[in-house]
């Protein structure tokens, strides 16, 4: 890993400086990277949460997509043409608005759509994207039901299915010595998928799942959910929630549970969770832990993205989105076409079996030599399965310490099932 990262960094820097130099000249070299160049440019749309319950996950994904486009354009663009400015849409955690955004971006002639961030929003427009024969790639959809969704080969994701995260979450809870577990999940594709995968994992380990129930994430009052949990008398509680989970976490603490009995996952992972629970004493959630697909643990990518977007505070799913954009661009290079019907066939191929490469420029040069490539992404090896998603995943286990500060305490590889 380290070696490829160093290579990638070197390649990216080299490519970037070359491209900059070229721009300083007449731009003659910038368009001369590979053959082609006469066809249409690759048009990419991006649908991310700019408002709504998941809007804290929006900025890292938006910046990562923009960053990827900048890197690709700096390396000479796709098939010799620069990728135009991203067509942006807001998923707003609202199916109607996400659908509108998709319609608009499809009408503007996108060849690929990056997003949406939440599985529910992806579900609200995935059929239109498939019908329009446009490639969709999400960096953060994790619901297991997307694996088998009939997508005619147009839907991809770089985030691992919760079928991989669930068992790791189950083991984390079980390894801590908890044997009776209650799960209260937000009733949507994400919550349900992760909850079921976790429950199955727990039962396989021999733990008892005393409750596995959904709640309405838009509910104005969570007292009843908390009451259901405390009545089930579990010795650990798992909350596959988004931010609203704090309204279950806090009353559980008041009911006498300690934070080390409470677990969650990527949806509720937040550096500032401690301040949210108690602004005066963030340490009250010391021990609260959970899992998440490993996010930025990648120095080069991290510093590159920080430089690109200095004001960014959260990095969750940024590498996955970066990989989505890069894989789309590489697939177009491999297919020699920016038409989604053509390059969708190459999406899986460029991620596995071949010579490893880790940046757009490096991979593109290999492709130009006729070599089969294996893109090693910013988020990990990627290696798509035939279903167009990672077959293995690196899952990190995070925990808040007694100061309330969150850190990664362990990283494990999950996978093939």
């Amino acid at each position, binding site marked *: 890993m380290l070696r490829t990262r160093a290579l990638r960094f070197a390649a990216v820097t080299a490519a970037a400086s070359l491209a900059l130099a070229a721009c300083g000249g007449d731009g003659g070299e910038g368009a001369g990277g590979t053959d082609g160049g006469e066809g249409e440019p690759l048009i990419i749309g991006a649908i991310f949460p700019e408002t709504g319950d998941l809007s804290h996950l929006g900025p890292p994904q938006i910046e990562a997509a923009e960053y990827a486009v900048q890197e690709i354009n700096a390396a000479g663009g796709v098939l010799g043409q620069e990728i135009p400015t991203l067509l942006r849409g807001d998923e707003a955690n609202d199916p109607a608005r996400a659908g509108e955004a998709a319609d608009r971006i499809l009408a503007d002639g996108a060849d690929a759509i990056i997003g949406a961030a939440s599985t529910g929003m992806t579900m609200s427009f995935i059929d239109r994207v498939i019908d329009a024969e446009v490639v969709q790639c999400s960096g953060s959809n994790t619901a297991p039901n997307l694996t088998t969704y009939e997508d005619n080969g147009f839907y991809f994701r770089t985030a691992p299915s919760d079928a991989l995260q669930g068992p790791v979450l189950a083991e984390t809870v079980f390894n801590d010595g908890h044997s009776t577990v209650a799960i209260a999940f937000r009733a949507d594709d994400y919550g349900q998928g992760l909850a079921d995968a976790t429950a199955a994992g727990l039962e396989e380990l021999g733990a008892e799942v005393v409750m596995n129930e959904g709640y309405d994430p838009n509910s104005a009052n969570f*007292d*009843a959910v908390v009451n259901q949990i405390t009545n089930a008398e579990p010795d650990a509680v798992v909350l596959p929630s988004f*931010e*609203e989970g704090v309204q279950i976490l806090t009353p559980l603490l008041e009911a006498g*549970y300690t934070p080390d*009995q409470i677990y969650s996952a990527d949806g509720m992972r937040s550096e500032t969770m401690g301040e949210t629970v108690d602004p005066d004493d963030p340490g009250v959630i010391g021990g609260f832990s959970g899992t998440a697909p490993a996010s930025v643990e990648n120095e080069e990518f991290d510093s590159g993205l920080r430089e690109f977007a200095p004001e960014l505070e959260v990095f969750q799913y940024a590498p996955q989105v970066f990989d989505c954009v890069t894989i789309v661009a590489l697939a177009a290079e491999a297919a020699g076409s920016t038409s989604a019907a053509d390059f969708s066939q190459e999406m899986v191929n460029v991620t596995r079996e071949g010579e490893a490469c880790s940046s757009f420029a490096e991979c593109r040069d290999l492709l130009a030599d006729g070599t089969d490539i294996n893109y090693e992404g910013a988020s990990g090896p990627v290696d798509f399965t035939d279903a167009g998603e990672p077959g293995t995943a690196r899952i990190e286990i995070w925990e808040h310490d007694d100061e309330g500060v969150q850190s990664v305490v362990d990283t494990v590889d999950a996978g093939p099932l």
Partner: protein
Amino acid sequence: MRKRLVTVLLAVAAALLAAPAALADGGGAFQGTVEGPGEEPVEGVEVVVSDGSGEVGRDTSDSAGEWRVELPEPGRYTISFQTESFPEGLVPREAGDEEAQRQARGNEQRVVFFLVEEGQQQTGEDAAPSASPTGGADEGEDEAADGTAGEVLGDPEQTGGTFGQRAVQLLVLGVLYGLIIAITAIGLSLIFGTTRLINFAHGDMVTLGAILALVLSAFMPFWAAALLAVAGGALFGGATETFLWRPLRRRGVALIQMFIISIGLSLFVRYLINVLFGPNRERMRAYQLQESFQIGPVSLTPRDVWLIGLSVLVLVAVGLMLQFTRIGKAMRAVSDNRDLARSSGIDVDRVTLVVWMLGGALAALGGIFYGLSQSVHWQVGFHLLLLMFAAVILGGLGTAYGAMVGGLVVGIVAQVSTLWFPAELQNAWALGIMIIVLLVRPQGILGRAERVG
């Protein structure tokens, strides 16, 4: 020597720490316990761990029922508990349990194996779901986990509950929820009563109050911040009346247009708050994380008790005001018949202004109470709005008392319904009750039947 020390440390650490124990070198380890029918450790059970190519390690459970096998690398392993080493008369809890496939991920993995009396064994099928009647074996499992975790768990006496105890607890939670809805809904109802306007922006007045209190409490004691926030709510209500609704009424804008304008105002205020305050949920800065205490079957935090008390006080005060003060009587008069009130010499515009200010203040107060009991975010009021409408219509449109009763019914039904139905459906039941009541009593619980046409 080192290994034994590590083993002991890990056995303790794995049980005590929330974090998985430190990574062992290489492939990690399986670390397990063998438990008998009465939750007691079983000694002398032989465990063999093997991968595809053969055995990688074996151990025998010690007097604490514990065993441990180090693994060469992450991967999939088979753990076999040797049947001939089981104590006389004991069999695995489930047929086939003696051979388990486990994924090793380079860390410390806990493995628990249960033995039960012969005849207590379950076949694979009926044991699979958690709901299976596992009886004694599972009890043992719970106890054992409690013991090893070394934690004081959710205090069973406090949380455990028969159906009756749960019902009482949920009833009290429902009352708390209902009182808060009632406080916010009174304004909505009075405003409708005096101006016939369905104020869609009422929810965002609730949000405004909660957020004002949260922001101001950074600079002053919470009670002062709350008072200022309530004043701010009144000011906002008064301002919208003075600068928006009154001019619109003067120009003769029809009600349906005003209704749409209120939706616009609602969206504007909501997204303005989103931009200024951010999209995250926050908790109020005061009265947080209090320890619950027990009154009979009910477990409440002191905060909840105060909220219930203050809410009742506010509702009684509003009731007295409407019943006995001059302005209260005038409000009811305008609400009954605007034209008749005007012709009998009541300054209708002034009364309307007071109603808006009162509505704004109560909405803000409801928002603060809600923020204390739940959390503060930019959509607080929006999520409450439908329930407020339900409360107002259920209780009888335009009457303040109706809004109080309606709010209580909505809150209680929403909470108590979770005794039988999933929590996801709690609001559906509250709104369902509204439909049923309206079918029987179209004017609402306290509404007065009106002749139409």
